[in-house]
C-alpha cells in the first residue's frame, strides 16, 4: 500500500496538465470557473479535443478504442481536469451507452456507434424515466411493437437531460407487455430526428432548462437498432446504472467546490473581518472538507478494488449517496456565506458575456440558484432513498 504517486504517475499528471493547458479553450474554462451555463458547442469543443487525443473515453479498455488507463491514471486525469476548470464530460455516450454497446452490442453496432462516441461527433441522451416510472423504472410503458424490419414506438419519456441537444437517445421500451415487468423490456437506440419525436422543455426551479419531456408518436425505429436481445434490456440497464453511480460521486468537483467556498469566505466580511475567521463558519468548512476526504478515500478504495479485477458492486451506491449530499452541503454553505446577496435574482448573469453588472459580489448571484438546482443530485441517478434500499438489501442482507 502506498499513497504516493510513482514517478510515472507524476509524469502522467504533467502530461495531462500540458494537454489541458494547450487544448481547453480559455472561454470555456472561464465559464466553468465562474459557474456560467455551458452550451452544446462548449461541451463539444472540449470533448472533441479529448477525442482527437483518444482520451474522451478514458474509462474504456484499449480494445474498444480507450486509452486503457490504470485506475490511478483515471483518478489523476479527473482531478487535473476539474482543477483546470474543464467541463464535466457528458456521460450519456461515454459512460453509459458506449459500454453497453461494446459489451452487449453486435459488431455492426460497435462499428457504427462507437466512433461517434469516442470522437464526440454524436450527442447521446438517456431515455429511461417516464412520468409514471421514476424509481420504479421497471414499470415503464413506452411501447415498441415489432412490424417487419422495424419497431414502432409510442409513449413518452421524461427528465431527459440535455435531450434538446441530442442526436440520439438510448431508450428502455416495453416489447412484451405480457411478460413479467423486468422481462418485457428492450434496449433501443433511436435517432432523435426520426419523425414522430417531440421534445418539450421542463424549466427547473433555478429558471434553467436542462431537462425535457420526449414524446414518441408512431416512431419507426429500424430493428437493427435493438441492442442485444429483445426482452434483455433490463439486464443492460442495470449494468449501466452501476457505471452511472460510480461517476456520480463527483469528488474532484466537490474538492474544487470546497476551495471555491474558502475563497468566498475569505472575501466576505463580518464585523470588518473576513468571514473565514469566524470560528463557527470555519468549523462548518472544516467539517465539509473532512466529509469530502472521507468520500475521496472511499472512492479510491473502490477504484483500487476494481483495479484488482472486481466489478463495481452494490456498495458503490453509497458513493452516490454521500457524493450528492456533499454537493448539496457545499451549495448550502455558499448561500450562508454570501448573506443578503444570495437574494437578488439575476438569471442573465448565468450566461457568458451578460451585459449586466452583478448586484452583489461576483460570486454571490449563483449561490442560491445552485443550491436550488443541486437538490436534484439526491433525486436523479436513482434517488438516495432507493440507493439506501439497495445497500440495505444487497450489502447488509436486510
Amino acid at each position: 500500500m502506498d499513497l504516493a504517486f510513482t514517478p510515472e504517475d507524476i509524469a502522467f499528471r504533467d502530461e495531462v496538465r500540458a494537454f489541458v493547458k494547450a487544448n481547453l479553450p480559455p472561454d470555456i474554462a472561464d465559464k466553468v470557473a465562474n459557474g456560467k451555463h455551458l452550451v452544446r458547442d462548449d461541451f463539444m469543443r472540449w470533448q472533441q479535443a479529448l477525442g482527437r487525443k483518444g482520451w474522451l473515453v478514458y474509462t474504456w479498455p484499449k480494445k474498444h478504442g480507450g486509452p486503457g488507463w490504470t485506475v490511478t491514471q483515471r483518478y489523476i486525469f479527473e482531478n487535473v481536469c476539474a482543477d483546470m476548470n474543464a467541463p464535466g464530460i457528458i456521460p450519456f455516450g461515454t459512460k453509459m451507452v458506449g459500454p453497453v454497446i461494446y459489451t452487449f452490442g453486435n459488431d455492426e453496432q460497435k462499428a457504427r456507434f462507437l466512433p461517434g462516441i469516442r470522437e464526440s461527433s454524436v450527442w447521446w441522451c438517456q431515455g429511461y424515466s417516464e412520468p409514471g416510472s421514476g424509481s420504479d423504472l421497471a414499470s415503464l410503458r413506452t411501447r415498441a411493437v415489432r412490424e417487419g424490419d422495424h419497431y414502432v414506438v409510442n409513449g413518452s419519456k421524461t427528465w431527459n437531460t440535455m435531450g434538446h441537444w441530442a442526436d440520439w437517445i438510448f431508450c428502455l421500451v416495453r416489447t412484451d407487455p405480457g411478460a413479467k415487468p423486468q422481462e418485457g423490456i428492450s434496449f433501443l437506440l433511436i435517432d432523435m430526428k426520426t419523425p414522430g419525436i417531440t421534445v418539450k422543455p421542463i424549466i427547473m426551479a433555478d429558471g434553467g432548462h436542462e431537462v425535457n419531456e420526449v414524446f414518441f408518436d408512431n416512431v419507426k425505429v429500424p430493428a437493427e437498432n435493438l441492442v442485444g436481445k429483445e426482452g434483455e434490456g433490463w439486464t443492460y440497464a442495470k449494468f449501466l446504472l452501476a457505471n452511472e453511480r460510480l461517476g456520480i460521486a463527483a469528488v474532484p468537483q466537490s474538492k474544487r467546490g470546497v476551495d471555491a467556498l474558502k475563497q468566498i469566505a475569505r472575501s466576505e466580511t463580518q464585523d470588518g473581518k473576513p468571514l473565514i475567521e469566524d470560528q463557527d463558519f470555519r468549523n462548518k468548512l472544516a467539517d465539509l472538507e473532512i466529509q469530502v476526504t472521507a468520500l475521496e478515500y472511499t472512492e479510491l478504495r473502490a477504484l483500487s478494488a476494481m483495479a484488482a479485477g472486481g466489478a463495481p458492486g452494490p456498495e458503490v451506491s453509497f458513493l452516490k449517496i454521500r457524493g450528492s449530499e456533499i454537493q448539496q452541503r457545499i451549495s448550502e454553505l455558499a448561500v450562508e456565506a454570501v448573506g443578503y446577496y444570495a437574494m437578488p435574482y439575476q438569471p442573465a448573469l448565468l450566461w457568458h458575456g451578460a451585459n449586466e453588472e452583478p448586484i452583489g459580489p461576483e460570486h454571490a448571484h449563483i449561490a442560491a440558484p445552485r443550491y436550488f438546482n443541486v437538490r436534484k443530485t439526491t433525486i436523479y441517478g436513482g434517488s438516495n432513498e432507493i440507493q439506501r434500499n439497495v445497500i440495505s438489501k444487497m450489502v447488509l442482507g436486510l
Partner: protein
Amino acid sequence: MDLSYSDEQKQIKEGVERFVREQYAFETRRKIAATDRGWLPENWAKFAELGWLGMSFSEADGGFGGGMVETAILMEAFGTGLVLEPYLPTVVMGGGLLAAGGSAAQKEALLAPMIGGEKQFAVAYAEKQSRYNLADVAVTAKKSGNGYALSGHKGVVYNAASADTIFVTARTSGGQRDEKGVTVFAVDAKAKGITRRDYPTQDALRASEVTFDNVSAGADAVVGQVDNGLALLEGVLDRAIVALCAEAVGCMDALNKQTLEYIKTRKQFGVPIGKFQVLQHRMVDCFTNAQEARSMTLMATLKIDDPDATVRKKAASGAKVQIGKSGKFVGQSAVQMHGGMGVTDELAVSHYFKRLTMIDTLFGSQQHHLTRYGNLSMAA
C-alpha cells in the same frame, strides 16, 4: 393561560384565509409576480378596506388596536399563499418604526395614509459590508444647515421601488460599527440624490440597491432620537422577525399539506410512495418541525411586547433559529419527496422552498441568531 384566538381574531383569520384561497391560486400568483410592480394595487386596496393595514396599530395612531397576534394571523395566511404584496416592509417595518419612534407630525403625515392604503414604505438598513450587524452603518448623515445630508449605499432594500418613503439608517456620530451614533431618517423616495437599481429576488419579491448622494433630510426627518436609532430599529426588526416567522409557519404548513397529498397519491412499485416507511418518517419529521416552528413563533408573538428587552430579543432570535432550521428541513424534504417534480418551476413546491430559503437569511441567519440568543441567555 389561554392560547386560543378570540372571536374577533378568528374572524380576521377566516377573512385572510378566504382572501388567499380566492385570490392567490398558484397560477394567479405567477401572473402577479410577472407584473411590473410584482404585486397588485387592487389587493393592496382590499387590505386597506379590510382594515389589515391598520390592524396592529393603536387607536391613538389611527389603527384598530390589535397587536402582534393579529399581525401573525395575517402573515401566516400570507405564507400559505406566498402572497407578494409588501405587507412586511410597509406595515410591519415602516409602520412599526413610525409607531415606535415617530413624532405626532410624522404619524399624521405618513402612518395615517399608510393605514389608508395610500403610502408604501421600505426600510434600508443593510449595507454591502454589514451582513447582519445593524450597527455596521457606513452611510453618513452630515449636518447641513438645519438638517442633514445623507450619503452612501444600502443593499437589498425590499419594496424600495414601490415605496413613497424610505426609512434609512445613517451614521450621525461615532465609528462605523459603534452602537451609538446611528440615526433613522424618513426620506421621500423621490428625493434628489437617491438612485435605485431595482431587481427581482430569488423568491419573486422586489428589492433594490439604493444609493444616497447628498440627499437632504430636514431635522424633522429624524425618526426617534438622533444617535439612538439602533435600539428603535432593533426593536422593530425583532417584531418583523416574528411576523416573518409566522409567514414561514404558513409556508411550512402549505408545503407539508402538498407533500402529504403527493405521497398519498403518487404511486411507484404499485403502491402510494407514502407507504414506504422512510418517507413516512420523513413526513413525520416535517410535521414535527412545522409544529416546533409554530410553537416558537407563538412564544415569540406573546413575548415580543415584554418590557424587558432581553426577553424580547431572546424570543425573536429563538424563533428565528427555529424557523431557519425547520424551514430548511421541511423545504428540502418536500422537494426530495416529490422526486423530479420537486425541482421544477412548474410545481409550487420549489417556490415555497425558495421563500423559506430566503426567510432563513432575512434579518439574520440561524448562525447569527444562535449567537445573539446564546450571548443573551448565557450572560448570567
